[in-house]
């Protein structure tokens, strides 16, 4: 973890230095990422026969892709481990079985040698089928290992030609296997079916889909995605919630991920010491086609099953995520002896419903943040320190002051009169 902290710091420092236009001394290797935690990107390029079509700015799709790759390779941040994979590059024949296994590693994921990578890209010529599913599986293997963020950028000009393996389901399974893996897709001169398929792949992993009609757009988008991979982000920790409070895993402050199946409850447990406040938020991502109405419920429950506080959210329509949160300040212990922390159970349920024909396993990705912080001071008045404000307040004060002055004056006159008569 410490290595990853250092790396993130280093990566940020590196970016800051570059942005400031400072020449980075060669010796400043402190921020040099270790292979374990460097962000990894695998560019997956479709080299199927259709890439020959000359419809991007007058040139062929392949030419546009090559140009984009050259520019992206030049601009790739140093800390990014970049690899290139092709699909449909080698087998020109008609045998579907062979054509659908045609995916090859063009440049391995690792420290980037720009010249070598460019030379490899230059050799490509449009050839075969479009086996998107197998290519994604192989790309996921390329990126295996390490704890940094991982990103697959898929550039294709046609839908998958290797049914029945649905690339969308493949993407979902890949995302379920590892943490922090995102697939971004780009469609070259797409048609409706391709748009649907590529955006389905992207949504399955929290990635983005882009249609490309011009070469510039392709270059810009791919460099944007590679840069995005280089940004330091907090990597969540995988956990597995239980189906009852008693068996729930204990969590401390941090960011966690889990999977929640349809209709499944997820329970976690957090120890909240007296005088501290528990803050928890949960978001459940819709990584597949779901019914248009959905919701999520997060409840904080005592060990005895009494609900303390809940957060709930419901929504309707297109969404990537539905999220809610809660806070629970644990009261100060009145007694010195009772300084023990309270175990608070967190229950997460969501009411997403899968569309007909959509696979329901693995569950939907769930992200949970837990913070145990100092508790707030209690408020004993609605207004700040019980102070007032406004013209009514002034009016009342002036009136009361005036009346008090009058009464005081009359009283003292009366006292003078009494004293005189005596």
């Amino acid at each position: 973890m410490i290595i990853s902290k250092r790396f993130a710091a280093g990566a940020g420092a590196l970016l800051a230095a570059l942005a400031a236009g400072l020449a980075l001394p060669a010796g400043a290797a402190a921020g040099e990422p270790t292979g374990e935690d460097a962000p990894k990107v695998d560019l997956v390029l479709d080299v199927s026969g259709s890439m020959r079509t000359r419809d991007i700015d007058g040139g062929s799709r392949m030419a546009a892709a090559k140009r984009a790759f050259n520019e992206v390779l030049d601009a790739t941040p140093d800390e990014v481990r970049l690899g290139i994979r092709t699909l449909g590059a080698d087998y020109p024949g008609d045998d579907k079985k062979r054509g659908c296994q045609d995916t090859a590693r063009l440049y391995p994921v690792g420290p980037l040698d720009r010249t070598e990578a460019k030379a490899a890209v230059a050799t490509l010529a449009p050839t075969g089928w479009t086996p998107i599913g197998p290519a994604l599986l192989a790309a996921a293997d390329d990126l295996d290992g390490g704890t940094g963020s991982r990103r697959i950028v898929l550039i294709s000009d046609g839908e998958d030609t290797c049914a029945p393996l649905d690339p969308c389901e493949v993407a979902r399974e890949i995302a379920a296997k590892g943490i922090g893996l995102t697939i971004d897709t780009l469609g070259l001169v797409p048609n409706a079916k391709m748009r649907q398929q590529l955006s389905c792949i992207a949504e399955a992993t929290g990635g983005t889909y882009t249609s490309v009609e011009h070469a510039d757009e392709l270059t810009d988008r791919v460099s944007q995605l590679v840069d995005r991979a280089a940004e330091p982000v907090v990597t969540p920790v995988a956990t597995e919630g239980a189906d009852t409070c008693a068996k729930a895993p204990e969590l401390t402050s941090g960011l966690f991920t889990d999977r929640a199946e349809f209709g499944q409850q997820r329970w976690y447990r957090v120890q909240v010491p007296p005088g501290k406040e528990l803050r928890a938020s949960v978001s459940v991502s819709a990584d597949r086609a779901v019914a248009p109405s959905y919701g999520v419920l997060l409840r904080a429950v005592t060990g005895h099953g009494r609900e303390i506080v809940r957060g709930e959210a419901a929504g309707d329509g297109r969404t990537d995520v539905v999220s809610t949160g809660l806070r629970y300040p644990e009261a100060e212990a009145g007694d010195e002896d009772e300084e023990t922390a309270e175990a608070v159970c967190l229950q997460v349920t969501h009411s997403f419903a899968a569309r007909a024909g959509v696979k329901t396993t693995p569950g939907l990705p769930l992200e949970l943040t837990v913070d145990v912080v100092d508790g707030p001071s209690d408020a004993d008045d609605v207004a700040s320190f019980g102070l007032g404000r406004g013209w009514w307040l002034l009016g009342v004060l002036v009136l009361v002051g005036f009346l008090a002055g009058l009464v005081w004056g009359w009283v003292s006159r009366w006292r003078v009169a009494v004293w005189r008569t005596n």
Partner: protein
Amino acid sequence: MRIARVLGAAALLLGLAAAPAAADSSPSPSADGGAPTQAGTSFRTATEIEQGQRATASGSAGDYLYWSFPADTGQRPTVKATVKLPDTHAAQTWQVDVYDGLRRRQACQYGAQTRTAAPGTSSVELACVLRTVRAWAEPWANDPLPGTYYVRLTVTGVPTSDLGLPVGAEVRVDSKDMGGAAAVDGSLAQPLVPGVAMKTDDEAALFDLDPDDGWSSGWWSDRWVWTAAGAVLAALAGIGGYALTRGSGRPRQVPPGM
């Protein structure tokens, strides 16, 4: 608290000679002097912006774009988003949502949060005026509290033919100072910033920005002025009332020499 934090950071810096410039590692937009030119794609990767900054991003129709900004007690933030659409497109419905640091959706008081762009229009403008940020609320309430706010901009209604088309987005958050009218008693020990309990200085954090002059301690409000002014006026009115009962000068009935 702040001093302790700063001292801690300084100590850490000294100790971290091996990782130079660790303190500069925050992905703060001000580090490079300019406004951010891209957006995040989830709560976790949201791009941090300051209030008053004009953040831009290029994306595709169908992307979920996320930004986050800090809002402090007494502010009423207004989120404005403009989406630049390509020359040809079908009708698209865009929406801006605001979430607080606990990822709870925050209601917009005013503003066109959702808008449909007719085919051929070049841009859509969205706005969301949040409720005033309070210093404290009961745990069961959904009131806006000082801390992080997330902005999510996305297209909610889009035909498949328009998916993935390039769009430009622009977001700006400004806030109005609502003064003591919204001042409540109590305060949070720590602002509602995600990951605040696990925050260290040399790590990528979920949220790393503070308001310009730090999080307010919450004890000051113009209610002090109102109340004090009220007290002074009340005292003056009291003297006035008293004087009225005495008449002007020496009472006539009092014999000379008293």
